[in-house]
């Protein structure tokens, strides 16, 4: 008798996604779905989708979902969680959403120790609108709105979300991962699982940043995109666990 080694996650919808070839969103969606299956919490998970490429995330995960205005996902998640206290509330956000228009909501939800999990996909660019400079765009990186490359003397340096959130007292779990190769995809899954598990246990705010490819707007093929993360992004955005109060305890 053959042994089942892989099954399509129940928490993943069979809808065809709109994501580009080589994009990291699909990988991260699947990881979240696998984690929800493994923790057996699909039926109690509520997903807040942001504005950006992942605006339709609620159609791709087989869970209840809610829209948020651009940047406000952590505030929407706050309101939802404060009503549905026994549910698992995920806020899925991109870099423009989380660090530009929603910087205030990001910091304050984290600072309150809101009992939600924020999954932050950092691809160093605005994808949905066609490739503008993001708060996380690298120095010298060319985008539609930084055609000569990001000039840090003019617009400042790329912002590091984990490091910012790590200055706050309340967050329970903060980790930065990447999905540019298999080893790191597995590490990302573990981080997502730990972050969500902490919410299941009611421990408070958990935050997972994931470096992710955007071949279309980077103007690179998928293989070169993965390489660019490893060689250009990772040295600036170190992959590590910033805080794990569960481990400290």
């Amino acid at each position, binding site marked *: 008798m053959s042994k089942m080694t892989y099954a399509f996650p129940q928490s993943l919808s069979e809808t065809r996604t709109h994501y580009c070839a080589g994009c990291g969103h699909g990988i991260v969606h699947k990881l979240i779905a696998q984690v929800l299956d493994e923790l057996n919490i699909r039926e109690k998970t509520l997903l807040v989708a942001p504005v950006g490429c992942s605006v*339709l995330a*609620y159609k791709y995960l087989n*869970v*209840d*979902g809610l829209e948020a*205005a651009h940047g406000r996902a952590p*505030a929407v998640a706050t309101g*939802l969680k404060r009503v*549905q206290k026994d549910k698992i509330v995920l806020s899925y956000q991109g870099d423009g959403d989380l660090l530009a228009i929603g910087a205030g*909501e990001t910091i304050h939800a984290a600072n309150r120790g809101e009992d939600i999990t924020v999954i932050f996909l950092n691809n160093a660019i605005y994808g949905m609108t066609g490739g503008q400079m993001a708060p996380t765009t690298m120095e010298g990186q060319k985008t539609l709105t930084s055609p000569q490359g990001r000039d840090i003397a003019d617009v400042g340096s790329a912002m590091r979300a984990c490091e910012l959130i790590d200055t706050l007292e309340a967050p329970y779990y903060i980790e930065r991962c990447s999905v540019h190769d298999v080893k790191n995809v597995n590490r990302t899954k573990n981080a997502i699982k730990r972050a969500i598990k902490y919410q299941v246990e009611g421990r408070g705010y958990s935050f997972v940043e994931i470096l992710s490819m955007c071949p279309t707007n980077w103007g690179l093929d998928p293989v070169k995109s993965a390489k660019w993360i490893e060689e250009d992004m990772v040295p600036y955005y170190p992959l590590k666990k910033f805080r794990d109060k569960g481990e400290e305890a």
Partner: protein
Amino acid sequence: MEEKILMKGNDAMAEAAIIAGCSHYFGYPITPQNEVPAYFAKRLPQVGGTFLQAESELAAISMVMGASAGGARVMTSTSSPGMSLKQEGISYMAGAKLPCVIANIMRGGPGLGGIAGSQADYFQATRGGGNGDYQTIVLAPGNVQELADLTILAFDLADKYRIPVIILGDGYLGQMSEPLVLPKPSGKTFEKPWAITGAKDRDPQFIASMRLTPENALEQLNLELQETYRVIRENEVITECYQCDDADTVLVAYGTAARIANKAVIKLREQGINAGLLRPKTLWPFPSEILRKITNDKKKVLTVEMSAGQMHEDVLLACDDKNKVDFYGRLGGALPKVDEIIERVKSYE
């Protein structure tokens, strides 16, 4: 007889909301409505509810959206500059068909303006306010009792039609203390099968304003909203007429301005001049048909407002004969004067 108690408008509104079953409040401080969050902060935990001071009005209205999607009765309050910020979330909630109650205790503008009461946000309240083809129900209380009573109604209307409802007061009303009988719960309950509660024993559902596919999905959503607005227009107009029947001149005013206009009508009558007052309690839907019928055989119609003539546009739209419609308003937090109203009405004689 039921016991009357003395309460500030802002406090009475908050207590009425709790009576109506409001379990969650999210807000950001701004004068002249600061009593509201303070009252909720003290009272909601006593009744098992949740008060949270948000980091901004943008965040507050988004928290309201989340709580509403979770099925709770939820409220926020603010004053004019804060109301501008809340338009983002109100537009999203209108599109997502989410109920909530938002109080705007208006102050003078534009910009930071001042902290004295004003009625200069009428356009913003009655024309949607944010982006898109939408309306909100707008209630206009004229005294503290009514502020409390209309708050109970606001929650029922919000749930009945799945629509944001605005309580449009002003700084004078919010700060004023008057005796009132605390209202009773309406007893109405509304099922919320659309709420986001987890996809257990049912298919997953989502709440969103966005409609990308199929091609006509967004127009379809808009048509559904317009149909709801039509039903509301037909069924939910509330207005009050004072001595209109034999009046030669009918004043039209709401809220604090209507209190002053009412006084002017009494004084005019004492001087043998037949004046009356028509007071809309719903600004959207606006009582256009009632206004048209009442003013048809009158000599003059005078709109009295604490603005440069915003509701006046609706009065003009409603009246068949525009030539008999006049306007008197004070701006930037100033109050209309009884004597000036009387003088204006006498000039029609």
